[in-house]
């Protein structure tokens, strides 16, 4: 039943795409499409929720589509239900946001159809239960999002972004094709059911896992396959950026979980080492890249890379525990990862919405041209602040909960027998802690430079508060961030069926714990209570406020800021994003990005301004992708000379081919 509803919703979304094409010209189309998609995804959300909480057994369904002798298999189990919820929650809020935001769209015909189709694609990926349907929906998802990235094709960066995105997406899909080819075997057992039954050999499963890590990882944005992500996500309209960053990457995580935990058979202990190594690198590289950015949306995109790293750390730990027969620890790590999936989808969407609101208000994405928006758009500023606090893992918000759980999982890992893991996990823990701190720094920068201080450009001065739909969407997400933060137990318990299905164990039920706190293993070991922390903070804060305003002065004077004796400082004297990041850049950037600063100080009497230039190189692009591009170009040039031969030379090609084949024959026996 639930599955049917979800599928019907997907079909409805596809139909909606057609509607978008047909009535794209009419002004009402925006309202219609986004409103309809809001309703449809809400229904499918309810279906997913009902299945996750209600049903115990997975439901499946086969349609006579796709590969003829195979049919299209669909299945709704706990895992796909959870990810269906994530997808639809993101889709709902994005549609709500777009009801207002979409009005500013200059070319709705390039957005509306693909938007609906994109949602349908993501829904189908999590429902698919055979290799063909899965890859079909997967690539369909990439294709539609590509079209959305290209929705403003006159901007050269967008075209480049779309290109890189599509190539990387095809690469990922082909890698997954290999993975499924392995799992399906020579006689083409393409349905997941058959793969589950097949029990692949250890080596085969390992290879499949690596391929899945590459294939799904390239879409999720793990380093070094992330290059497309910071290009493509910002290029799309903001609500689509939110979907791509907050939801599509999660669908990729789903793909990885599906293969690594279910199809690839029982894990070997060293799988987790691979995953953890990649994840640790992804986490830190992502946040360091983000710190170097001053384009708001690109910064957010790089933070997606970081959070994907955190998620994969959780998954890697879970694999490790699972391989070493510690199911409960595995359940803890998996739950942490999945909870972070959920949380990240919330606050990343929220932040992208915020950047969209800023974009519509000022027309600027570059933080260096913003500032002081908190005065002009206070509500947006407030919700974005919540988002920033949440993604910086500050209690009592949701980001902290999942990171805390991940830390708890790390603290369990001394029980792991293998030395490789013993030495690996603490390092990963350090990287995680480092990235958490750096993320906080990065969002101080992002928020402070964008919303605080004084406006740096007239555009920022003229900004005005965004529309009510967008605000509604953002407040909705912010509220969810808080709720998950203070009532994590509820959500952890909701995730129990997933870990039970994948690992056969679950975290202890949290609802019973005193004061709704969460207790991963035992109360004596560790516990956290977001609700109480929240109450305490509000209580003590209000107490202090009351006391001071009651017993002490509450008078207040406005005066110019302290200017060191130089009157009327221009906004240009404020700290910019680049200057804010300078200390951290000096600490980390010098060897990661080979960041170089050049100060050009004119001699006294010379009137030209002094200038400081910072040169940052992207190591991964330079060492991995640039050579590839150059190489292909070289080969293409070299082969291209064959286009310019004379007929006689072409004939001699034929002649040589003939002689060679005859020689082969002569030598054959």
């Amino acid at each position: 039943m639930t599955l049917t509803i979800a599928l019907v919703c997907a079909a409805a979304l596809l139909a909606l795409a057609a509607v978008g094409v047909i009535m794209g010209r009419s002004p009402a189309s925006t309202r219609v499409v986004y409103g309809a998609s809001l309703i449809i995804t809400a229904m499918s959300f309810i279906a997913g929720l009902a299945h996750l909480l209600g049903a115990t057994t997975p439901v499946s369904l086969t349609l006579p589509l796709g590969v003829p002798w195979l049919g299209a298999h669909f299945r709704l189990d706990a895992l796909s239900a959870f990810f269906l919820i994530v997808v639809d929650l993101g889709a709902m809020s994005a549609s709500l946001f777009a009801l207002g935001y979409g009005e500013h769209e200059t070319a709705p015909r390039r957005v509306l159809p693909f938007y609906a189709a994109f949602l349908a694609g993501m829904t189908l990926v999590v429902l698919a239960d055979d290799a063909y349907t899965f890859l079909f929906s997967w690539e369909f998802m990439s294709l539609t999002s590509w079209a959305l990235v290209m929705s403003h094709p006159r901007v050269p960066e967008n075209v480049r972004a779309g290109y890189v995105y599509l190539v990387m997406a095809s690469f990922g899909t082909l890698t997954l094709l290999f993975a499924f080819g392995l799992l399906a075997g020579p006689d083409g057992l393409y349905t997941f059911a058959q793969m589950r039954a097949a029990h692949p050999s250890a080596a085969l499963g390992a290879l499949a896992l690596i391929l899945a890590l590459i294939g799904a990882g390239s879409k999720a944005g793990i380093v070094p396959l992330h290059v497309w992500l910071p290009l493509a996500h910002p290029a799309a309209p903001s609500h689509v950026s939110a979907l791509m960053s907050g939801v599509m990457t999660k669908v990729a995580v789903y793909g990885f979980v599906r293969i690594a935990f279910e199809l690839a058979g029982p894990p070997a202990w060293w799988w987790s080492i691979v995953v953890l190594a990649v994840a640790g690198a992804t986490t830190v590289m992502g946040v360091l890249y983000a710190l170097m950015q001053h384009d708001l949306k690109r910064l957010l995109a790089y933070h997606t890379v970081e959070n994907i790293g955190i998620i994969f750390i959780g998954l890697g730990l879970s694999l490790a525990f699972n391989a070493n027969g510690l199911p409960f620890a595995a359940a803890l790590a998996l739950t942490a990862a999945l909870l972070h999936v959920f949380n990240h989808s919330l606050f990343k969407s929220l932040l992208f919405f915020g950047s969209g609101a800023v974009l519509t208000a000022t027309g600027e994405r570059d933080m260096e041209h913003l500032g002081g928006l908190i005065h002009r758009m206070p509500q947006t500023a407030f919700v974005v602040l919540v988002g920033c606090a949440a993604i910086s893992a500050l209690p009592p918000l949701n980001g902290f909960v999942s990171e805390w759980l991940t830390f708890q999982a790390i603290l369990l890992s001394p029980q792991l027998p293998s030395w490789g893991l013993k030495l690996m996990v603490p390092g990963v823990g350090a990287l995680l802690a480092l990235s958490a701190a750096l993320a906080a720094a990065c969002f101080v920068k992002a928020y402070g430079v964008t919303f605080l201080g004084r406006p740096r450009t007239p555009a920022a001065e003229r900004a005005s508060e965004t529309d009510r739909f967008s605000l509604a969407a953002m407040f909705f997400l912010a509220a969810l961030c808080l709720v998950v933060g203070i009532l994590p137990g509820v959500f952890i318990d909701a995730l129990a069926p997933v870990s039970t299905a994948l690992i056969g164990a679950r975290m202890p039920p949290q609802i019973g714990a005193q004061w709704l706190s969460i207790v991963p293993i035992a109360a004596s070991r560790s516990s956290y209570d977001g609700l109480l922390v929240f109450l305490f903070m509000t209580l003590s804060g209000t107490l202090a406020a009351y006391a001071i305003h009651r017993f002490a002065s509450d008078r207040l004077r406005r005066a110019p800021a302290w200017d060191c004796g130089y009157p009327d400082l221009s906004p240009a004297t404020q700290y910019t994003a680049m200057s804010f990041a300078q200390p951290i850049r000096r600490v980390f950037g010098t060897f990661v990005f080979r960041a170089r600063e050049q100060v050009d100080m004119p001699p006294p009497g010379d009137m030209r301004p002094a200038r400081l230039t910072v040169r940052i190189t992207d190591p991964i692009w330079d060492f991995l992708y640039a050579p590839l591009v150059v190489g292909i170009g070289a080969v293409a040039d070299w082969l291209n000379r064959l286009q310019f031969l004379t007929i006689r030379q072409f004939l001699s090609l034929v002649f040589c081919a003939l002689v060679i084949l005859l020689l082969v024959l002569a030598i054959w026996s």
Partner: protein
Amino acid sequence: MSRIDFDIAHLLAGSLVLISFLELYQDRLYALLNVFAAHALVLAASVAWQAFVQDAPHLYVTAAIALTFKAIVIPVALHRIIVRLGIHREIEKVVGVGTAMLAGMGLVALSMVVMLRVTHGADPLAREDLAFALSVVLLGLLMMVTRRNAVSQVIGFMSLENGLVLAATGAKGMPLVVEISVAFSILIAFIVIGIFLFRIRERFDTVDVQVIDRFRGERR
């Protein structure tokens, strides 16, 4: 068939190969034309002999075509073209005579190896014919790729085709042989007319980069 028939067929086919070598050797166009005429002549002879041996009268038609068309009409036409294009005293080889000969040797050896190794079941006549035919084909192709100007390449193509006819006639009782030879004659006529009409000399082979770009490349 009797021994003598076999020997004569063998002799004719062998001499066809020999003449192909002579063609390879020639570098003056007139001389080349004459040698080719001889080539066609021998072919006609061998086809006629096959017709006689297999008492397949329709093969006489093929022989006639070879005789009239290839040994007379085409050489004359080509002669005209050479005069018109004024290329009669050109040395136009890509590789030297020696190399070409050596390559030709190699090709003949190759075809012998390939053919004689295979057809154990078939009667020796067909077998010999096939081996020689293959060498003639290969030599013709070699000629096409080692010559620069149109005329000698056409000649190469025609001797290649002579090899085909030899094979076809050698294949006892093969249908459509006449039709095929006719079709080929038409083909060759097309080529010759092509050369005649469009003066395609340089389009066969040129080292002029501009021309290459203009014609064969992307128009920049």
